[in-house]
């Protein structure tokens, strides 16, 4: 899950500025796409492997990065196998895997607050009417509350299953929406209580 991607550490990658990491990620992805050569892919794979080692990450973290896209990669492999043959299919899938691992390397080594500071820095020269602090806060709330909404979903699904309504969409989504909106009100109030603004 998005919120579980940060891995605590003090490696050079953890300490690097988020803007630098995002910039390098952009260059890395661009090079892998614009130079479609197996040698470049091999270098790319070596670079991302070195990055994982440098950050003190394990092979399981790389698996965690690729696993959510596993079925999509299988579909891409099957389509490319049919259209282009096994060599190209393996190349395309390996390139996607490298991109996913590289992107995850950034999130594994960057805290949400650092991303948000980066966003605020990027918005420094935005017009005054752009609500920079609110945009940053909204980003952090998304990060924080995805697991909470998922927890509500699991609780409601279990409760409705116990009542024999596990497949009833109305019984599932009405309580989820009501609870989520109620939580949103309380969260909004807590933010007001903790900050100094109305």
């Amino acid at each position: 899950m998005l919120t579980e991607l940060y891995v605590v550490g003090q490696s050079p990658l953890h300490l690097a500025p988020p803007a630098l990491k995002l910039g390098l990620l952009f260059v890395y992805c661009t090079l892998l796409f614009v130079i479609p050569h197996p040698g470049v892919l091999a270098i790319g794979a070596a670079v991302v492997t070195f990055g994982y080692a440098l950050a003190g990450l394990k092979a399981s973290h790389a698996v965690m990065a690729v696993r959510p896209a596993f079925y999509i990669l299988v579909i891409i492999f099957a389509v490319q196998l049919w259209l282009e043959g096994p060599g190209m299919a393996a190349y395309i899938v390996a390139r996607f895997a490298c991109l996913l691992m590289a992107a995850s390397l950034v999130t594994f080594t960057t805290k949400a607050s650092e991303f948000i500071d980066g966003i605020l820095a990027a918005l420094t020269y935005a017009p005054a009417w752009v609500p920079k602090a609110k945009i940053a806060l909204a980003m952090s709330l998304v990060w924080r509350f995805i697991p909470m909404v998922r927890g509500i979903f699991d609780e409601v699904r279990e409760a409705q299953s116990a009542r024999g309504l596990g497949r009833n969409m109305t019984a599932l989504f009405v309580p989820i929406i009501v609870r989520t909106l109620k939580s949103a009100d309380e969260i909004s109030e807590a933010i007001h209580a903790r900050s100094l603004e109305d």
Partner: protein
Amino acid sequence: MIQFDRVTVAKEGRTILSEISLDLSEHRIGVIGNNGSGKSTFLRLFNGLERPTTGRVCYKGEDKTDLRQHVGFVFQNPDNQIVFPMVDEDLAFGLKARKLSKPEIKTRIDAVLTELSLTHLRERLTHQLSGGEKQMVALAGVLVTRPDLIVFDEPTTLLDLRNKLRFMSVLDALPHPAVVVSHDLDLLAGFDRILHIEDGHIIADGAPDVVIPAYIARSTC
């Protein structure tokens, strides 16, 4: 420290609190009452989350508009109070809102985590904490802002016995004056003053050994 001067709160034609006048200066003040009696609304007035429809809430004799600068609020459900994914990021939230420098933010977070014996949680993901740990982190998020007074809205309702006892011991050791709304009469038994609110009125105000037995008698008859 806090004075209520004929405070009335009304919403959608319904009076929630009626003509409340109080001078609150005790170290520990408990608030009891049935559900829907107006306790939470009363508590929200301390922090400026609720504004009186008529009357004034004064801090040290002044009708302040920046009550949040002085009064911290600990909510019943810490899940709705913690807004950042990691503990240290969340503790920094209120301090960044106050535009403190990074070294000052770090110093304050270090001090509070040490004070509450939470240093091991510093880089933990907030949604992975236990209920008791979340409540402590929520309290830490308030303490770092160094409030003059802390108000608690049913802080032990979601805690098991062990965490409730730990919370009680932490609350006992806090140097800050506190106002606590709770149904947990054990928690309030050692307080200096108890307010009993019913239907928007303070119907009893005094020492715990007087107000709490009367509340129990009223609730069981």
